[in-house]
């Protein structure tokens, strides 16, 4: 029974990774950039949620929505200011800029509020519900239902709306999409907005679940979410979800086996194995190199 509990923990952690990974995978799918700053948008989301709940005494859901909106705005600003000029630059230049933006966000936050961690207010009186003899906390159920709702919403946006269609078109072939009259710049901005909003939501959920946030908290989950995106096949939305869940479960299992200090190493070992054995990811198709 303890195992099922660990599995539930793993899925909760995994759904946080999945939410962040979705932003990575969407951005990568559309402009082929590893947006290193994505983990920091996640951190900003956690802090916005914290101030909304603890200082301005908002309801959790209002705080969640506020964090998502503000993160979407931040994501668009990052894209417009830093990445837009680099559309035609080399991949390495774009990657270095992303690293720079990430460091800039982290240390600007530290500069203004110090690097001390913050304790998230308790928003739920956590109860354990017994389902088939397994104790599941309401918190885990909350996390799961919010993330599943957001993922379904994302699926709806991507597959049923006009902007979703534009996003798919641009990621397939940006030039052809432009010829068809799609505003590529706005579509890319929309992708950043949606991805960043999901990261902001993940930040608030993370804060509620782990109750401790600090300005450098985005680095590790950010990189792990990237690993999740690669695991599922980068650029593929269901892949990011599955990758996140798998990674969360693996990490929890490694911790439960008593190797909690090796937890981070496990994620990187998965990354290296997947890159070497199947670089296209679980859901990806192998593309052949053309000269």
């Amino acid at each position, binding site marked *: 029974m303890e195992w099922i509990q660990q599995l539930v923990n793993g899925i909760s952690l995994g759904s946080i990774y999945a939410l962040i990974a979705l932003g990575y995978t969407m951005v990568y799918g559309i402009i082929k950039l590893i947006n290193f700053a994505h983990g920091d948008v996640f951190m900003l989301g956690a802090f916005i949620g914290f101030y909304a709940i603890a200082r301005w005494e908002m309801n959790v859901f209002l705080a969640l929505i506020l964090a998502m909106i503000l993160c979407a705005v931040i994501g668009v600003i990052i894209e417009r200011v830093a990445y837009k000029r680099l559309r035609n630059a080399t991949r390495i230049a774009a990657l270095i800029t992303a*690293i720079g933006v990430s460091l800039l966000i982290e240390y600007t936050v530290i500069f203004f509020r110090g690097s001390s961690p913050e304790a998230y207010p308790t928003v739920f009186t956590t109860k354990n519900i017994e389902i088939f003899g397994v104790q599941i906390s309401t918190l885990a159920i909350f996390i799961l239902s919010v993330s599943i709702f957001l993922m379904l919403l994302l699926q709806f946006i991507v597959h049923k709306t006009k902007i979703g269609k534009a996003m798919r078109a641009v990621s397939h072939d940006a030039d052809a999409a432009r010829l068809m009259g799609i505003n590529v710049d706005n579509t890319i901005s929309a992708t950043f907005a949606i991805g960043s909003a999901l990261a902001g939501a993940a930040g608030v959920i993370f804060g509620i679940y782990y109750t401790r946030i600090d300005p450098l908290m985005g680095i590790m989950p950010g990189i792990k979410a990237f690993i999740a995106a*690669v695991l599922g096949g980068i650029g593929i939305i269901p892949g990011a979800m599955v990758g996140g869940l798998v990674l969360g479960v693996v990490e929890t299992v490694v911790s439960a086996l008593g190797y909690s200090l090796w937890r981070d*190493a496990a994620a990187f070992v998965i*990354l290296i194995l997947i*890159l070497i054995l199947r670089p296209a990811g679980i859901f990806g198709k192998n593309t052949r*190199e053309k000269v």
Partner: protein
Amino acid sequence: MKKSKIFWGYAVLALVIYAVVQLLISNGVIQNYYQNMFIAMCINIILAVSLHVIIGVTGQFSIGHAGFLAVGAYISAICTMKFGMPFITAILIGAIVAALAGLLVGIPSLRLKGDYLAIATLGFAEIIRIVFVNTDYVGGAAGLQVTHQSTWTYAFFGVFITILVISNFTNSRHGRACISIREDEIAADAMGINTTYYKVVAFAIGSFFAGVAGAIYAHNYYIIQPTAFGFLKSFDILIFVVLGGLGSLSGSVIAAILLTIVSTYLQEFPETRMIIYSLILILVMLYRPTGLLGSKEITAYFKFGKKGGTRV
């Protein structure tokens, strides 16, 4: 004939710099604080030049250089502290083990390209760090105490040998093969260059000198802790190479010197330092993506009017 003249010119210049600084140190003109800054500068130059071989010359984007620094630091510290070896042997052993680590990391990951390679090297560096955190023999997360043995002499000759080897490598047949991989890997392959071999060689050379830097680093700061070798350290090294100009050895040396001075004066304000670093990184990429010197060497700027092929 002419080449050897240039070489001796630089060798004499280097000796003069060494002798002047050594004289000032032994006369007490340069205080401990600045002496430390000079040693840190040397360590950073070695790191910058060693990463320059991988990124600048061969074009393989590695952001896990701190991992090899950690290997060099820990292995050399084990040699001196646990086995009581002399410092110079420890430097060599640290460097060789770091080169082996480079081979071990390079052989699988150099099949990858661009972003994926970057992430894989980052992953390997983190794994190396986590291994040291979990090894009680080297003190785990608390770190390992090391006696202070690095002096200006060791640091300077470290720099001298690194630059000598790497500039000779770059101008050799092997170096040209590496440059061709940077310019176009597929074309290089088609010309019959064994691209995998040269990529791995460049990686191993880079790791070797990162190991040298690690050994000097470990014996300069009294204690080494795994947290000192995280991503931030890798990014610190990366910024030297990027700011100096991808492909320019003298550029990365100049960037390392400048940024060491900047960060020494900003030691009291680490946040400000990181904000300045990140702004430099972003602005350089947006407005001058080739870095300060581009792929040219600084010597190229003193050769106006002379005829001759462009240097790479």
